[in-house]
């Protein structure tokens, strides 16, 4: 068994145990989960929301949702990490769209473009599985064709609907759908292969 596989299993086992304690109302387990995941959770919230206040509200609400209803996480359907980050992203998109409706302004344009000249290896802190996975995800994104990565990032980090993406890029809606699916399939294959 590889070192990486052992670490993945250790982290999954730790999260399952923390989740078990959380279901019993253990505040210590909740605090431990906050310490483990608050950085990536706040990172995605801020990336999507582009605003400190909104990001804090999103993180607050995401963690409180986990505290109030830990049963919503089903271990048979994926990892706690995936659940929490997906939940945070979902809430961040909702928050951004609500703000957009209220203020009719775009507060995240600067976050849409991929960072230029980025050296993903610089961001990796050795020994941390989360950071390792972060590096893998960024590398997987780089392997996508530009047109696929653009629609994916506009949707995921830019909170755009497919109709909005088609309008902004001036391409047919069907093309947006096709590129999105191709990107998701390729990421699925790449990330599954890496984790295996």
């Amino acid at each position, binding site marked *: 068994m590889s070192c990486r596989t052992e670490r993945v299993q250790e982290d999954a086992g730790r999260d399952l145990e923390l989740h078990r304690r959380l279901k019993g109302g253990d*505040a210590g387990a*909740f605090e431990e989960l*906050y310490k483990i995941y*608050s*950085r*990536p*959770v*706040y*990172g*995605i919230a801020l*990336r*999507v929301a582009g605003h400190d206040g909104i990001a*804090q509200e999103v993180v*607050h609400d*995401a*963690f*409180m*949702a*986990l505290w*109030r*209803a830990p*049963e*919503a996480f089903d271990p048979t*359907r*994926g*990892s706690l*990490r*995936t*659940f929490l*980050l997906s*939940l945070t*992203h*979902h*809430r961040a*998109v*909702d928050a951004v769209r609500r703000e957009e*409706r209220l203020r009719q302004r775009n507060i995240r344009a600067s976050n849409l473009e991929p960072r230029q000249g980025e050296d993903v290896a610089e961001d990796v802190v050795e020994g941390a599985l*989360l*950071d390792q*996975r*972060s590096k893998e*995800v*960024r590398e997987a*994104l780089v392997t996508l064709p530009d047109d696929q990565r653009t629609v*994916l990032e506009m*949707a*995921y980090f830019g909170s755009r*609907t*497919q*109709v909005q993406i088609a309008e902004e890029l001036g391409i047919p809606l069907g093309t947006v*759908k*096709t590129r*999105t*699916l191709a990107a*998701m*399939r390729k*990421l*699925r294959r790449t*990330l*599954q292969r890496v984790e295996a």
Partner: protein
Amino acid sequence: MIQDHDRIDELLAGYVLQGLEGDDAREADRLLVEHVPDCAVCKETLAAFQAVTGDLALAADPIDPPDLLWPQIRRSMGEEPVGRGRKLALLAVAASIVAIFALAGWNVLLNGRISDESGHKQQLASMLADMTGDDGRRMVSLEDPDHEPTMLISYLPGYPATRFVGVNVPDPAEGHVYRVWLIDHGDSTQLADFVPSEGVVMIESNIDLSTFDEVVITEEPGSASATFAPGGTVRWSGNVFAT
């Protein structure tokens, strides 16, 4: 069949990215209820795409949250999410719905489309059990203009999981449907159309109701399929945050 699944995969990819709207969103909702739960291929695809969206979050730079955030969360942990008296009253409504439902039979119509009766039994039983459970769910009682609670909504703040159950719901006028609207700061989002079957309604939706202020159900002509704001007669309504 392969082409069908390519089309479904397109919708699932857009769904997990929260990128769908209009007809695509409604089609995805329908698939998630009618097809995906019984299709091993689609269930695997959906789970894999959801895992990808979870991983994608790691592409953002991890950032230390402000120091004040954790104390705020700790304070919120001690707050009672729902007023106890109010919750008990809503549970009483839920209990009465369960009792009435036992007399109403098992003919349940979900968005006017589902036809599998045994599936309905399991779904409604599960929904009612969830509604009366104590897992952090909140409830909204929808009242008609005479303040009679006829429908009950159960939701988990922060989660895309909302359920509507109604009993003794009268049929709309011939050629009409009921339309569910979600209101957020005055903006309306059309959620679903339904027609009760023998007075029973069951709707399950992948929305987080806590992000909306109010739920309104109107009666609309069945042909009015592309309205953007409630135009028909308001039949039931309820404030989300009043719970």
